[in-house]
């Protein structure tokens, strides 16, 4: 139970950083070897569900290493990232946290998320899905060593993906 509580607190703190636009502090939660990946999802019949998501190495919405994530943060900070300037107002809700694997300080954790984005006067976007993270315990703290983000939508109903999941 303590472990569950610790992971949930970690996600709440992480979400608070993103929603407060503290992207540099958020980057500090990521391992140097992080892979941040959001595959393309397809609408498939039941007997072809093995092809529902693209595989690593094929097309993806995000397929980032740490350097690429830092570029994304630097982009937002540039003052010329119009998709986020004026900045979006986001709220990350992270629920249904499940530790599915925990061996020698490395955990696989699945959670559900709802990312709500309010933008300009009346723009609104909602992304729901599942995250599968690898959390690594380093000196008593967690680092995110990988994050796989599985959105529900196959046709994204938003004009862009300019926020972090």
């Amino acid at each position, binding site marked *: 139970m303590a472990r569950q509580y610790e992971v949930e607190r970690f996600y709440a703190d992480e979400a608070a950083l993103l929603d407060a636009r503290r992207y540099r502090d958020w980057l500090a939660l990521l391992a140097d070897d992080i892979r941040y990946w*959001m*595959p*393309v999802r*397809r*609408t*498939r*019949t039941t007997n*072809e569900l093995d*092809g529902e998501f*693209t*595989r690593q*190495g*094929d*097309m*993806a*919405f*995000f*397929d*980032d290493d740490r350097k*690429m994530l830092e*570029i*994304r943060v*630097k*982009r937002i900070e*540039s*003052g*010329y*990232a*119009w*998709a986020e300037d004026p900045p979006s107002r986001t709220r990350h809700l992270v629920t249904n946290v499940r530790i599915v694997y925990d061996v020698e300080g490395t955990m696989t954790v699945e959670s559900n998320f709802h990312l709500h984005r309010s933008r300009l006067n009346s723009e609104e976007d909602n992304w729901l899905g599942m995250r599968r993270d690898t959390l690594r315990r380093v000196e008593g703290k967690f680092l995110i060593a990988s994050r796989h983000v599985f959105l529900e939508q*196959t*046709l*994204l*109903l*938003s*004009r*862009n*993906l*300019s926020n972090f999941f």
Partner: protein
Amino acid sequence: MREDPAIDYRSFVDARAGTVDRRIFSDQAIHDEEMERIFARCWNFMCHESQIPRAGDFFLNFIGQDSVIATRDRKGGLQVFLNSCRHRGNAVCRADSGRVKSFLCTYHGWTYDLEGKLVGVPGHKSFYHEDLERDKWGLVRAAKVESYKGFVFATMDPETPPLEEYLGPVGRMGLSMAAAHGDVMVVDGVQKNVIGCNWKLAVDNLFDWYHVQISHASAPLSGYLPKLPYKDEDHIVALGEYGHAISGPRTTPEIRAALAGASTAVPLVDERWRDTPEAMAALGPVGVASRGHPNIFPNLWIASSGVQLCLRIPRGPLSTEIWWFTMLDKNMPEDRRRASVERMNHTFGPAGILEQDDGENWSQSTLATRSALARRHPLNFAMNLGRGEIVERQPGVASIDTHINEHAQLWTYRAWADWMTAKDWPALKCDHAMPTGVV
């Protein structure tokens, strides 16, 4: 055949003043007529042949706002059907891709084979008393389906000229840029998202090298794109009949070598594929030199130096689906393939460093075509107007040597007005803008 239009579409596009009436970007009646006069008549991009290599492989796409199935029959032929059962109209295919033996309507079980023939009707004997003539109730098939260098197109109009003739030298050059990268196949995963903009504003943008320094200013500032080792000062515009065009920077072997040197550290397309005899044979000197963006009228952008295609699908006047297809040589070494795929993933698509900022511009532009006051004032496409001398540097290819300009955008709108005015293909053939003189 449509009746002669009550609306004077040519009045919306003033090629002399370089202006376009804002109403064409949000008016519902104009949009509905576009579906009839453009999308129901043109060649529409469906998919690349590598996406449907085997019998029963299918890829769902659109012709205008009609859902269509692109598939391959048992004889290896390409087939395109309206995705609508002839009984009650239900979709006969609801996955967006995959493989089937036949298309089963989930409403009452009418079943169609891979050539669209109605082969199964539950109760054909007991309820229909065999009165239903099954051979008359097959899926509605495209009038023509043709492939150019592996790129599959369909048209619903039997009068549409053959694909190669429709493409003309400029359209063929554009697709040849995409085909010039070896034995290409589509990388798994078509990225799809929706932008709240009119489809024409998205198309217009692909020729727009003026917006890059402002819209995409964050790309160099974030360290994603390097400062270029040269200046993109010289541009080539190629204009084709029926609205095809290519517009963008002119490259030279020296620029390509400099770019390739820079791309070891940064994500840019290596342009040295142009320096081969095969590229020269397929594209000619204008095509080899043009690093510009082709558009196959109406809505297929050939992007990333021919490695990606971006399709802009109208969903009503105020909404457009953006689909990205990425194509690489199937024999590419794994490390290069991986690097190329990552580069495309990072550059375009809704999370792409270059694309994130486009959508808001286009949607705000679209919004300002609806309101009473803003729409009184036309949009301006007058850059370099009256200074673009069309020459024939390559047989059959009308091109302009210039700098950043808006010729291709205005050309697209002129062609749009031609398409909207013509009551049928014979009328369009004899009455459309020709790329000659000074524009």
